[in-house]
């Protein structure tokens, strides 16, 4: 393997600009003659919009335009798109209810955009937005899922009876019932998967431009994929948002300050800015502030789960049955209905050999911000259910948590293995990885440590999770390679960097395959005019799909090069071999460099008809199979009984992420994800009160993981190659998040188990822990 190949901890190319403050994020982009847009948002969770008087705002200083939905609709900006909703148990797939770009005659969540103001300065736009007089007729609101499904609850949409969008199910109900009928025991658990604000540190923003000469729009916005946004806007995919032909819209994605699932999506504000730029005739910029992010960025998670595990007396799992409520919020965001259903439920069997499984989910609408993909997108919710349930089973049967898992793991010789929920697991050595983790965490010595801690008055707990995750299969990622006359290679990829470092990984793979220096490779992403197509980033697929594609294309480029090299060197094509960055006539010392061949490709006399100047290469590739990273998280904590505070003692992760390209960057993905999972378990929750007000819409009251409240992780990996792609890679982006939440929660429950506390809802804050300790003490007394 060469110096840029698999396993090399190459420094990131991106960091040259990031450490010097010369990155280029959306809000860093400014245009001459630019105007600013501010958004007026609903203060009510549910209200009729009786009238909107914009007179005073229009007359305010510096104001260039004040727009409401009527204005947008008249110009063909009609509707927020949503991807398809999965069919319910009755076989019918409902249509997503209409979601206007700005409120039409009703608002359904606090923060819903109602009107926009465009002015010479941001301050003028904001000041004027406060002069808009909206006459609201307040309606009763419902933010809680159980309340929304109850009889007599306020109804969000006439067409969504009882606020139940769809009652969806998966698995074999009869087989599951049969397995439960023969079970010796049934263990059940009730869980709440708390609502999370994705909280990219860069707030969303958009810069919209319109060129009247070419009748073309340009939208510059940080996202997880420009092509996806363009398709949603122009209606190439699903319901179109704006009456703009696809060729009349260019979407550009500059540097992105974190996405985490949320920046996949098309939001109201960029559409309003696109509308406004044509009307105003000047560039329109919108940069969200943090409260706007909390109010209108899609949220994540928000499920209520009831799960039951049928087992034998020996502890063998027979079947799992789960019924859940999944909150999609007040409207269906693009993947919104998929997240609590198709996206994650297939993973509810975890890494255990189970005969039968059945899941049913009530996808519920509430007067809250729309919920959509957040790092893991359904799989963390599934892992949380299964791994909490396994630990509860261990406690109730008296079988050790590791022994119970070992007994039920799918064995390494069973792959490929299809779960009763249809997931085609490709590989895994679960018991081996669990043993490695247990050794590193000194699992065997834990009870002694627990006793020692107890002597100091501390409650010590050790929590395990063995997670498995499914990373994006489906269409491959677009890659186009070419070489200029100086031998510089240009890679155009349809993926999108959100901080993961694809510029580096794709350069690394290209340099390795072509035997050149990384300095001679340029990677471009994120501009629909420059790159023909793209899937963007999401589903932890950048390396397995995007990286594989780059390598395959680079190899095809070599084959194209051989045809020219044969002409250049006056040899037969079959005699040309490529090595060390050059084309050689086998068995001779005659050769041509990649640069030389690229240069020759511009000479018609040397270039065959089927090769393009610059060796431009694009390869049609088959869809990629999903990959199934997995691993063991062991979290050891100590609880102060007087305060309920948690101290991290040790945190071990042993992962199978397939073959590793860049260990530095892999670690970043895993531990970043793990930190977010810790946040969900212990700190984070977007809270709505009974009237549907978001209680914590700022960093004052939404608790984020910080440098002093996230553990140091002891991270190792074992490479079990994925047979599903040529790199043997498995996805790394979401794995850490999926594994850590249940491990931390299990550790807290384990610490409290001597007090007979068997559940605390996430986030497991010091207050909740302290209250549980007090209740236990009262009960004991």
């Amino acid at each position: 393997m060469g110096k840029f190949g698999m396993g090399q901890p190459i420094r990131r190319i991106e960091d040259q600009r990031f450490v010097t403050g010369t990155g280029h994020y959306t809000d860093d982009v400014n245009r001459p003659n630019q105007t600013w847009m501010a958004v007026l948002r609903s203060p009510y969770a549910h209200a009729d919009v009786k009238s909107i008087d914009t007179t005073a705002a229009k007359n305010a200083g510096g104001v260039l335009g004040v727009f409401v939905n009527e204005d947008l609709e008249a110009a063909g900006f009609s509707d927020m798109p949503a991807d398809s909703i999965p069919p319910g148990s009755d076989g019918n797939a409902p249509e997503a209810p209409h979601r206007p770009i700005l409120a039409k005659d009703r608002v359904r969540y606090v923060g819903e955009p109602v009107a926009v103001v465009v002015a010479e300065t941001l301050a003028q736009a904001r000041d004027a937005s406060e002069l808009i007089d909206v006459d609201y007729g307040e309606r009763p609101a419902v933010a809680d899922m159980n309340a929304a499904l109850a009889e007599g609850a306020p109804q969000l949409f006439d067409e969504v009876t009882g606020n139940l969008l769809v009652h969806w199910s998966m698995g074999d109900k009869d087989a599951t019932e049969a397995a439960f009928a023969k079970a010796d025991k049934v263990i059940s658990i009730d869980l709440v998967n708390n609502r999370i604000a994705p909280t990219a540190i860069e707030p969303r923003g958009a810069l919209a431009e319109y060129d009247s000469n070419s009748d073309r729009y340009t939208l510059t916005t940080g996202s997880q994929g420009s092509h996806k946004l363009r398709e949603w806007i122009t209606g190439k995919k699903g319901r179109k948002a704006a009456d703009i032909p696809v060729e009349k819209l260019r979407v550009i994605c500059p540097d992105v300050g974190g996405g985490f699932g949320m920046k996949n999506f098309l939001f109201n504000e960029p559409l309003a800015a696109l509308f406004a730029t044509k009307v105003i005739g000047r560039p329109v910029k919108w940069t969200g502030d943090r409260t706007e992010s909390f109010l209108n960025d899609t949220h994540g998670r928000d499920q209520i789960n009831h799960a039951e595990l049928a087992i034998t007396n020996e502890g063998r799992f027979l079947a799992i049955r789960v019924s859940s409520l999944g909150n999609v919020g007040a409207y269906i965001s693009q993947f919104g209905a998929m997240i609590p259903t198709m996206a994650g439920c297939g993973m509810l069997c975890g890494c255990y050999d189970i005969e039968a499984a059945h899941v049913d989910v009530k996808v519920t609408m509430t007067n809250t911000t729309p919920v959509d993909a957040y790092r893991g997108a359904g799989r963390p919710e599934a892992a949380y259910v299964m791994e909490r349930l396994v630990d509860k089973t261990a406690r109730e049967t008296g079988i050790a948590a590791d022994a119970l898992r070992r007994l039920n793991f799918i064995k390494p010789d069973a792959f490929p293995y299809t779960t009763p929920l249809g997931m085609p697991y490709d590989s895994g050595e679960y018991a081996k990885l669990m043993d490695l983790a247990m050794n590193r965490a000194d699992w065997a010595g834990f009870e002694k440590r627990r006793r020692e801690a107890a002597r100091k008055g501390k409650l010590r707990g050790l929590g395990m999770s063995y997670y498995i995750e499914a990373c994006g299969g489906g269409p491959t990622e677009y890659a186009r390679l070419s070489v200029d006359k100086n031998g510089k290679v240009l890679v155009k990829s349809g993926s999108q960097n959100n901080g993961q470092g694809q510029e580096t990984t794709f350069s690394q793979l290209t340099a390795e395959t072509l035997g050149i220096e990384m300095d001679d490779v340029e990677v471009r992403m994120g501009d629909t005019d420059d790159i023909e197509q793209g899937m963007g980033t999401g589903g932890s697929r950048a390396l397995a799909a995007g990286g594989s594609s780059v390598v395959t294309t680079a190899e095809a480029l070599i084959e194209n090069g051989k045809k020219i090299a044969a002409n250049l060197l006056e040899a037969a094509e079959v005699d040309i071999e490529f090595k060390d960055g050059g084309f050689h006539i086998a068995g001779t010392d005659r050769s041509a460099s990649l640069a030389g061949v690229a240069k020759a490709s511009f000479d018609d006399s040397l270039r065959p008809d089927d090769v393009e100047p610059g060796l431009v290469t694009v390869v049609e590739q088959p869809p990629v199979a999903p990959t199934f990273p997995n691993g063991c998280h062991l979290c050891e904590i100590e609880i102060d009984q007087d305060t309920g505070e948690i101290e991290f003692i040790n945190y071990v992760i042993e992962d199978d992420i397939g073959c590793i390209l860049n260990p530095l960057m892999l670690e970043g993905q895993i531990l970043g994800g793990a930190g977010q999972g810790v946040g969900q378990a212990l700190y984070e929750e977007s809270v709505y009160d009974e009237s549907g007000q978001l209680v914590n819409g700022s960093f004052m009251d939404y608790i984020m993981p910080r440098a002093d409240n996230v553990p140091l992780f002891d991270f190792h990996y074992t490479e079990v190659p994925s047979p599903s792609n040529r790199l043997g890679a498995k996805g790394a982006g979401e794995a850490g998040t999926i594994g850590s939440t249940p491990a931390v929660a299990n550790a807290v429950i384990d610490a409290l188990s001597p007090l007979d506390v068997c559940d605390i809802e996430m986030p497991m804050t010091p207050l909740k822990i302290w209250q549980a300790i007090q209740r236990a003490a009262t009960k004991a007394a």
Partner: protein
Amino acid sequence: MEDMLEDTVLVNLRINGKLHELEIPAHKSLLDLLRDDLNMTGTHMGCMTGHCGACTVSIDGRVAKSCITLAATLGRAKITTIEGLTQDDGELSPVQQAFWDEAGFQCAFCAPGMLMCTTELLDANPDPSDAEIETALAGNLCRCTGYQSLRRAVKAAAKLKQNTREAAE
């Protein structure tokens, strides 16, 4: 009210070594001055409430959040931004170098705060403990890294600075 907002103050500021004489509206934050008026976009806006740290700069040797600092109050102040960490010859400071070497960042939107706070920490405390590093970084939010690579980068920066000092002696 409108008039008051338009009041300006004549202020001399030294930013990254360069002297600026500026008429600054009384209500303008240092962040807006840097980004909008001086086109120095290395300093970022993440919350405008002083909680996330993406807007961190150094004012007279102390880190400060530029989003909640009124620029007009900074007469004769010496300000260093992330752009000012790079030396005049283009060489990276040991802190920048260490964050690069250790893959400290991912999306790097938090970079201004992490780099400025680490620079201040190591100027005062060349060999910080884990707890001191955590405290120094705790005013800066990062959503990407789980903070481990950042903490490792601070340690690497301390070592790099020490090596540079020893080489100079």
